[in-house]
């Protein structure tokens, strides 16, 4: 139904932003060509299609590039109408988009801060991250997913936390995913990772830990 050949995705295997676009493509059953980028040696194609940010992911549909993973997912949802990712109701859509921007505006920075700080700065960063997770925990009260009974836009955008936050905890030696402190959030991470389209589309855990260990060491040494 969803034709291949006309959809290409430029990505990097360890990147959460890339993975969330793949989840969206898989939910819709869209065939696509995946092109792995070496970010230390970016291809001319990538630089041509995303001259402003020079980053992955980049989605190509019938030769036209789309940039920014959240924009991509909305695009995918609008072009392929089956298995909807965003709700139909305008008010519910505002909530879906709100939690998506919370992920990109707050959660990413919060996790990044814990990764790349040490000592007292790191302790403060952990407390800040706990506050962030608390907000998510409260929002999830009584819900299986942010999208309700099934995963939706917010789940796809926030989903990186279910896999990459435990990786961060291992790499940077801290613990925030406490099922006693944040029971709803902890359940959500479990439930999210069990969804077949997610479970079957995650990077290998060991390799990912190794990747971020190297990345962290490089950044801390700089």
């Amino acid at each position, binding site marked *: 139904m969803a034709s291949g050949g006309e959809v290409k995705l430029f990505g990097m295997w360890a990147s959460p932003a890339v993975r969330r676009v793949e989840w969206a493509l898989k939910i819709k059953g869209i065939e696509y060509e995946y092109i792995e980028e070496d970010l230390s040696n970016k291809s001319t194609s990538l630089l041509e299609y995303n001259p402003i940010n020079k980053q992955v992911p980049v989605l190509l549909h019938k030769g036209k590039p789309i940039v*920014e993973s959240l*924009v991509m997912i*909305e695009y995918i949802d609008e072009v392929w109408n089956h298995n909807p990712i965003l709700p139909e109701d*305008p*008010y519910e*859509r*505002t909530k879906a988009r*709100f939690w998506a921007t*919370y992920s990109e505006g707050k959660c990413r920075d919060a996790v990044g801060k814990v990764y790349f700080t040490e000592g007292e700065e790191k302790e403060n960063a952990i407390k800040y991250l706990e506050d962030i997770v608390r907000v998510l925990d409260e929002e999830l009260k009584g819900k299986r997913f942010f999208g309700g009974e099934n995963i939706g836009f917010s789940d796809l955008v926030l989903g990186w936390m279910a896999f990459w936050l435990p990786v961060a905890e291992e790499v940077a030696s801290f613990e925030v995913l406490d099922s006693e402190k944040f029971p709803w959030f902890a359940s959500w991470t479990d439930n999210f990772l069990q969804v077949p389209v997610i479970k079957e589309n995650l990077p290998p855990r060991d390799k990912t830990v190794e990747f971020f260990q190297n990345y962290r060491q490089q950044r801390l040494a700089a």
Partner: protein
Amino acid sequence: MTQGGEDVKLLGAWASPFVIRIRIALNLKGVDYEFLEEVFGVKSELLLESNPVYKKIPVLIHDGKPVCESMIIVQYIDEVWATKGPAILSADPYDRALHRFWAYYVDDKWFPSVSAISRAQTEEAKAEAVEQVFAGLKLLEEAFQKCGKGKGFFGGDTIGYVDIALGCFLAWLKATEKMTGIKFFDEAKTPLLAQWVERFCADVAVRGVMPETDKMVEFAKMLQTKFKAAASAK
């Protein structure tokens, strides 16, 4: 399909560009609303209740239900009042993606580069910050061509999503021009944008809600004094 109810409230402040975005959108759709002005420096109970996560304006309250984050509110307005006024986002998915990208660019990259000018501590840092802003304006000039397709606005014939995202800052930018002597929208450098600025500010949906430059200068000076006082008090 759902017609908007009559009860539309906007929590905001006259000087906030993010609030101006909402007022322009509501004006485009011809939607009446009650403007609840927040007192500067004090957050009302209603604001804290309606936006517990960020505690920030703007908040749109439609039939008692709060909507937060300016560009999310703009999309909501476009969807709820789809049959009224011009479309803020085109119906074409690729155009929508293009416009959404440029709105992200304005918020995540370009406006922060403008703020960096006032935060610069040295003349060198200031010059660098100014260079960044102009580099961004060059990109926005190209974006105008791509998005507007030869028409008067990023949105084409009428004000659209990117016009709102960028245009809301114009009062602030004009005030900064007056205070620093930097001319952001130079006919020689970015002719399309320079013309767009005048066209946008003259539009009936914008005129009444875009603060006058002198008033913004006064407000900016007040803010500067406040920050200086706070910094020296430490």
